[in-house]
């Protein structure tokens, strides 16, 4: 089936991903692209606890994700690729020409960030990086759950 969505969510694998997206999409795997989690066995165990039987949790570094993305696209199961920040998804998009769409699913408040949507807080620098992605041909929108409208970047990052 391939990769159904590439999502940026600073909570990584959590209820909204597993249930909110996992159920309606019929996910067969979630590929979490995060160098820190990839290097930590106990963190992988922790994230695995939240994944129901029938969904494989794949933990990949950025380098591994760039190498394996084509394999994930060919996978007969429905997959979701997940990163925790804009830098990681930007770096992945730069190395994967077939990555054409990014969904911001949850980026929460931190010092310097401003609320753009209820579940999306961004600094000006992060907005500039997202605009660069758009200029590179990647569609960027925000959508926390599948039943919500996908809000284009231009609407919430003026």
């Amino acid at each position, binding site marked *: 089936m391939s990769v159904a969505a590439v999502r940026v969510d600073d909570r*990584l694998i959590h*209820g909204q991903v597993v249930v909110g997206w996992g159920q309606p999409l019929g996910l067969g795997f979630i590929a979490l692209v995060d160098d820190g989690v990839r290097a930590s066995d106990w963190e992988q165990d922790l994230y695995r606890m939240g994944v129901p039987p029938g969904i494989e949790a794949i933990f990949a570094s950025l380098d591994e994700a760039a190498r394996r993305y084509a394999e994930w696209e060919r996978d007969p199961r429905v997959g979701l690729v997940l990163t925790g920040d804009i830098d990681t998804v930007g770096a992945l998009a730069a190395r994967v020409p077939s990555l054409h769409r990014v969904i911001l699913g949850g980026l929460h408040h931190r010092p310097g960030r401003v609320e753009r949507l209820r579940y999306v807080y961004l600094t000006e620098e992060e907005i500039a990086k997202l605009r660069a992605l758009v200029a590179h041909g990647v569609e960027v929108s925000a959508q926390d759950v599948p039943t919500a409208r996908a809000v284009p970047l231009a609407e919430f990052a003026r």
Partner: protein
Amino acid sequence: MSEPLKGVVVSHAGLAQSLVAAAESISGVTDALVPVSNEGCDGGSLQARIGGAIGAGPAVVFVDLPGGSCLTGAVRIARGQGRGVTVVTGVNLAMLLDFVFHRDATPAEAAERAREAGGRAIRVAPA
């Protein structure tokens, strides 16, 4: 005698606040449980909320789901505090009601007792 255990309830949205309010209303014990919501938090800020609610410990942290941001934040804090904090998933009202009256145990003992109490409360009612 050492200080009784504190219970910290961590959940999505307003579930923790409601569970704590219900437990206090039923038990009359109002100094045992602290609610924490993950609303509006990234991982770091949720950990800060949980850590603030635990304080110096010892404590049992009750989490709603056996996976996800609440569990992740709670376990990260528990690992940082060693044996002073234990995490239990699948929080329900029955386990909180049992916990508030049994806070003289170690965190690990209280967590195991809470798990048993919570599990016993899940039944199919006779028709």
